[in-house]
C-alpha cells in the first residue's frame, strides 16, 4: 500500500544520503522524496512517498527512527493528512492550441507563469493524483518538460510533527 511518511532530521551534510542510502540498501520502494529546511534552520523536514506491505512499512518507520540524525518520524497515512505537490509543465502552444491548454489548466486551478510565441509554462499545486490527471487531460505530444517536486505532507488539525 502507498504510504506517505514525514520526518524531521538534523539539517546536516550527509543526512539526506543516510535516508536515501537506507532505502536502497534495504530494498525499499521510494516513489518520491521532498526535503527542505524548516523555520528552525537546524532541522530539515522530509516527506517520503513509499509503498509496501504492512510489515515493510513498519520496518521503514523503525529503520528511519534508528538513524541518528532523524529526530521524529510520522506515518501521515495513519491518520488524517493533506498532501500537495508542485508541478511545472512546459507545453508546445501556438495560437488556438495555447487557449485550449490554458482552458484545461484553469480547470485544474493552474497558473500560466511563462509564455513565448511557441511555448507556455503552467504551474499547478495539488495532490499527486490530481497532477497525474492533468497530464492525462492534455495532449501528451505537446508536453516539452514536466518538473515535479514530489509530495509534501502535513497532518490535519492537531496532528503536529514538531520537536
Amino acid at each position, binding site marked *: 500500500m502507498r504510504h506517505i511518511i514525514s520526518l524531521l*532530521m538534523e539539517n546536516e551534510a550527509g543526512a539526506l*544520503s543516510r535516508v536515501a542510502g537506507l532505502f536502497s540498501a534495504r530494498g525499499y520502494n521510494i516513489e518520491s522524496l521532498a526535503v527542505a529546511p524548516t523555520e528552525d534552520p537546524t532541522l530539515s523536514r522530509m516527506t517520503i512517498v513509499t509503498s509496501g506491505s504492512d510489515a515493510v512499512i513498519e*520496518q521503514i518507520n523503525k*529503520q528511519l*527512527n534508528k538513524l*541518528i540524525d532523524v*529526530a*521524529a518520524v510520522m506515518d501521515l497515512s495513519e491518520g488524517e493528512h493533506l498532501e500537495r505537490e508542485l508541478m511545472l509543465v512546459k507545453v508546445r502552444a501556438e495560437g488556438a492550441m495555447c487557449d485550449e491548454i490554458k482552458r484545461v489548466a484553469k480547470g485544474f486551478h493552474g497558473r500560466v507563469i511563462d509564455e513565448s510565441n511557441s511555448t507556455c509554462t503552467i504551474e499547478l499545486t495539488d495532490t499527486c493524483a490530481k497532477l497525474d490527471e492533468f497530464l492525462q487531460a492534455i495532449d501528451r505530444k505537446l508536453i516539452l518538460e514536466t518538473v515535479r517536486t514530489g509530495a509534501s505532507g502535513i497532518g490535519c488539525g492537531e496532528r503536529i510533527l514538531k520537536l
Partner: protein
Amino acid sequence: MELTGAEIAIRCLQEEGVEYIFGYPGGAVLHIYDALFQQDKVKHILVRHEQAAVHAADGYARSSENVGVALVTSGPGITNAVTGIATAYMDSIPMVIISGQVPSYAIGEDAFQEVDAVGITRPCVKHNFLVKDVKDIALTIKKAFYLAKSGRPGPVLVDIPKDISNQKTAYAYPASVNIRSYNPVGKGDSAQIKRAVQMLLEAKRPMVYAGGGVVLAGASAQLTEFVRLLGAPCTNTLMGLGGYPATDKLFVGMPGMHGTYEACMAMQYCDVLIAIGARFDDRVIGNVEHFAQVPRKIIHIDIDPSSIAKRVKVDVPVVGDLKLVLGQLLGELRSSKQKPNASDMATWWKQVDEWRVKGGGLRYKNSTEIIKPQYVIEKLYEITAGDAFITSDVGQHQMWAAQYYKFNKPRRWINSGGLGTMGFGLPAAMGVQLINPGATVACVTGEGSIQMNIQELSTCKQFHLPIKVVSLNNRYLGMVRQWQEFFHGNRYSESYMDALPDFVKLAEAYGHIGIRIDKPSDVEPALKEAFARKKDLVFMDFQTDPTENVFPMVPGGKGLSEVILAEDL
C-alpha cells in the same frame, strides 16, 4: 590553553580512559601520530594491516566492556579498515574508528589518497562524522564514544582532515553530551512485562532463546537466574554462547544451521518462545515459512525496535535494555503467585530429553589414525579447563569450536557471527590478550582463514602476545567443500588449498614456536606443551581429517525440524 586538533583527539581518548588503540600511520594522520608520540597514556599497537587494527579493537571490546579504538589513514587505510568495521557493525560491537582525511580544502579534488570515508562506511557504521572545524573535534569524539556504547552498540567513524588536525583551538572536554535526535531506551513497558510473564506461566512448553544481546548488555547473571526460575530449556545462539552456562542441565545447546537436534526441535515445537537479544537470523531459524507453520506465541525483547517483528510475527514485543528488562521479568516472576505448571513442565522436559537421546548429542567417530578436528577442540576444552578466551575464524573449525568448547561465561567466545569474516581470529585475539593480560587466549582457525591475516604474527611478536593458535588444517576451505559435497555433486571447485606454506617454519620465521601435529596420540601432549608456555605464542598446525563434515546441519532454506544428523556412526 590552545591545542592542535591532533592533540585534542588524543586528549579525548585519554579522557575516555582508552588504554590501547590499534592503528597504522600514513600521511593524513601524521599530526595525530605526532601527538600520540608526545604522551604515554594511550598506548598504540602497530598492526600490519588496517583490517587487523579494527579486528583487534573489536576483540578488545568483545572481551571487556570497553569501546575498541582504531586509527587509520585516509584512502587505502580506511578502505582496508572497512571489512573490520562491517564485521563490528553486524555484531553490534562498540567501537570508535578515527580516520585521517585529505586536507579539507582538497576534498572533492581526487587528491592523493582521497576516498569518501563517510560515504564508503555509511552502510556499515552506527553513525559517522566528518569533522570540518577544529572546534568540533572534542564534541564529535565525545559523541562518537557515547553513540558507540549506548543503545544498541556499534562502530562510529570520525573522519578528520589533515589541516583540521593541525589547526589550534581552545580545548575543553565536554562533561556531557546530548543528542536530541537520539534517545536510547531504558526499562521495558511494565504492562508488556506483565503480559510476557503471564504468557510464560501459562505455557505448556516454554523455551528461552537468548542471543548476543545478552552478552553485550552484561545481562548473563540475570538471564541465568531467569531461566532457572522458569525452569525452561534455554538455547544460546552462536553470538550468545556463554550468556547462559553451557554445562547447565537446562541448556540445550546452540540452535540453527549447526545447532543441536534438541535446540532446533525445541525452538520449533515450543508453545511460547521468549527471544532475548536475538534476531531470528536466517542461520538460526532457517526457512521463515517453515518456522511459522507451527503455531507458537513469541515474546521478543530487544534494545532495537527494528529487530523486533523483522523476520517473524511477534505477540509481545518489549523494547528495552536487556539487563533492566530481565530485572523486571525476574521481579514479576518472583512476585507472581502462579508458578509454572509442574506436570506440564515435566512432560515438556521428557520430550526435550527424548530429542536429546534421538539427536545422540554432538558426536563424531574418533580415530587412532587421523586427527578428528572435534577431538582437538574437546582436548582444548579440557586442557584450558574451559576457561580460555577463544577467538575463531570462519568455517568448519568455527562451528566445531562453538559446538565442542563449553562456554560457561560470557565474553569468552569471540567470533564474527554476522558478517562471517575469515581473517578475524588472530587479530581479534591480539585485542583480547591486551585487555586480559595473563589470561589464556586461543585462536581456533583453519589453514584458509589464518592466511588472511597471518602477517599479524609479526605484531604478536612485537607486543609479546602469547596467543595459542590452534589451526585445524584440513587442506580445504572446509566449509565450502562441505557445501560442494552436499549440494554441488562433489565438485570441489577451488576449495582445495594447494601450495600451503610450512606453518611451523612460518611461525619460526616470525620468531614464534611452531608445532606440527600429525597423529591423534600427539594432540594432547602438543596442547599441553603449548599451553604450558605462558610467555610464547605457539602455532599448532593440526593435520586434521580433510573429509570431516559439520553435523547436525539444517541445510540453507530448510526448516529447523529438517535437520540432518551425523551420518551413521
